[in-house]
């Protein structure tokens, strides 16, 4: 069974690297961010699988940190980096 988990992790790593093509090709900024999101979620899954395959419980903590901090990049990108044309008329948040 542990061998199987390692194969699954390998499959996910390959999957993640194929998804990298979107980060390199774009064409727009959010497309590249989406690729980052894919890699973040997949890395969480890879870490979970590796944690079971190698019997290292601490890897779950690394996965937890990834899951917790993945939102930060997207929020900073939307709030700071993406050039803004100004708010549309009407309601405002916050």
């Amino acid at each position, binding site marked *: *069974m542990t061998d*199987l*988990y390692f194969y*699954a992790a390998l*499959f*996910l790593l390959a*999957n*993640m690297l*194929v*998804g990298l*093509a*979107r980060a390199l090709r774009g064409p*727009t900024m*959010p*497309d590249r*961010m*989406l*690729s980052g*999101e*894919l890699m973040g*979620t*997949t890395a*969480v*899954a890879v870490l*979970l*699988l590796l944690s*079971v395959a190698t019997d290292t*419980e601490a890897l*779950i903590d690394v*996965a*937890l940190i990834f*899951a*917790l901090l*993945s*939102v930060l990049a*997207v*929020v900073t990108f*939307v709030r700071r980096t*993406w*050039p*803004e*044309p100004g*708010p*549309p008329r009407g309601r405002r948040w916050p």
Partner: protein
Amino acid sequence: MNLFIDGASLMLLVLGLLFFLSGTIGLLRFPDVFTRLHALSKTDTLALGFISASLALQSGSLLLTLKLLLITLLVMVAGATSSSLIAGAAIARGVRPWQR
């Protein structure tokens, strides 16, 4: 009973891998940011849920299972919010959804 749990775990694992694959295919093949968002965030969250469920069936420890549950919930909440942020920001910046 043990065989049943092993079988269910294996099935969940394979389902998770397939959903990850479909998310990547969607990200690469779909035509614009909204469709890619749709393909990616839903399938990936679901796939991670399947994989955590598969591992939780085998974990045999309550703490580990709770951590897996916490990670899955975090990814769900974070994925949903970041998708809505990106989509909302794209609309506000005048990105037109793709039409045939």
